[in-house]
């Protein structure tokens, strides 16, 4: 069994083929893909769910560390329509509609309830979206067929736990960190840089001048720049 944990990324758009160049070789174990606007790094682990979830959290930490401005937003809990389910199972959409309406195959275990209902934009019609993890479990038990052979997903609890760990990683990365350098030293360095810059700038500006009041020329030049 392979545990599949798709991680939704933010800060990178994998629809653009050039974006893949940002992926470091150390993260080559992940399966990187774009499903429309969703940029995903998929963890495919042969370990048990709990271990795989820990691996996913570790990968999220590596992504945040090694890919500038890229973070794992959450575990991607894929939603599917009736039509998607029909395509994946290999049956007519009408069959899936009847399952979802609980008019067929509902005696042993009813079809999962929708996770979202969205408008289709015409005539007030709506479309229900179902969690693929739940639908897959129902299909395996009731239809005795397997559209994702050898693949296991996290349970609701494991998924919520991993999302909490990912949120903690995000919070950790976005927090302000104090820099352990003495303020006095920084001020001195900056003053020195400013001094050197003014002198060199003054010299450059005076390269073609014959006057002796260097400080005056310098101030004059700075005023001109402003």
């Amino acid at each position, binding site marked *: 069994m392979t545990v599949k944990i798709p991680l939704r990324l933010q800060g990178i758009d994998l629809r653009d083929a050039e974006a893949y160049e940002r992926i470091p070789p150390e993260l080559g*174990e992940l399966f*990187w893909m774009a499903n429309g606007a969703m940029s995903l790094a998929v963890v*495919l682990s042969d370990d048990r769910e709990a271990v795989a979830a820990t691996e996913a959290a570790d990968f999220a930490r590596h992504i945040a560390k090694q890919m500038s401005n890229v973070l794992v937003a959450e575990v991607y809990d894929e939603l599917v329509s009736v039509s998607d389910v029909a395509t994946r199972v290999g049956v007519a959409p009408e069959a899936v509609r009847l399952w979802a309406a609980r008019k067929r195959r509902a005696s042993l275990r009813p079809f999962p309830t929708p996770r979202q209902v969205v408008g289709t934009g015409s005539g007030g019609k709506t479309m229900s979206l179902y969690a693929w993890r739940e639908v897959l479990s129902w299909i395996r038990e009731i239809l005795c067929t397997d559209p994702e052979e050898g693949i296991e997903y996290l349970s609701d609890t494991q998924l919520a736990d991993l999302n909490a760990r990912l949120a903690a990683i995000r919070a950790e990365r976005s927090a302000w960190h104090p820099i352990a350098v003495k303020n006095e030293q920084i001020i001195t360095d900056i003053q020195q840089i400013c001094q050197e810059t003014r002198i060199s700038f003054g010299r450059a500006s005076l390269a073609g001048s014959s006057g002796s009041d260097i400080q005056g020329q310098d101030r004059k030049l700075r005023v001109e720049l402003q």
Partner: protein
Amino acid sequence: MSAHYGPDESWPRHQKSWWNEALAEAHAAGWTLNYIDAPHKFGVVSCPSEDDGARHSFMVDKTARGGETKSKEARKLVRGCRHGSTPLGSKVRARQEECERLLQEAERLIAIADTGLTLAEAQAAAWADLERLETQLETAAANLAAILREQQEEALQAVDDADDPPEPDAIAAALDDAASAVTESESAATALRVRKPKLAEPLLSRAEAARVMISDLHGRLGALY
């Protein structure tokens, strides 16, 4: 160093067979390959969506772990993508393959239904047999009960009709009297045998038979009371 390969061009081959299968499927579906050929990356494969916002793509690595599982996920992505600027004729082929796949699935489901129905029919037949036997048993039990009730009534009637038997003591007294009479007759016959043996022998035989009968009746009396 990268090169772009369209669906009408021949794509570079991957060193792993499972990735070649996924690449062949993507190629046939009209996807394009951005061949990177870096030490760890083979390239990026993108679907032919005209809408940039809906595009699908995936990265093909070279030797990273789990390549076989990743290639399977890539094939799922290719099959799930419906963006189709497919080469000429491939739409017909795709529909034909889709039809064949759906029919295979239908046949598989029909076979499952057939097996299920056969089992259900066998179970229904077994239930019918069981019900029939139970009905027969109930009928037989009812008939037997009726017959037994009838016999019981007859027996009760016979008991009612029968004469009242004498008391056991009276029967025993009768048997004792009979035994005494036999003893006396034997004595007389024994005396007669001296002078008239031919006359006495049959009498003695009868007395003996009577004694046996008396003994038998004593036995029956003891068993009854």
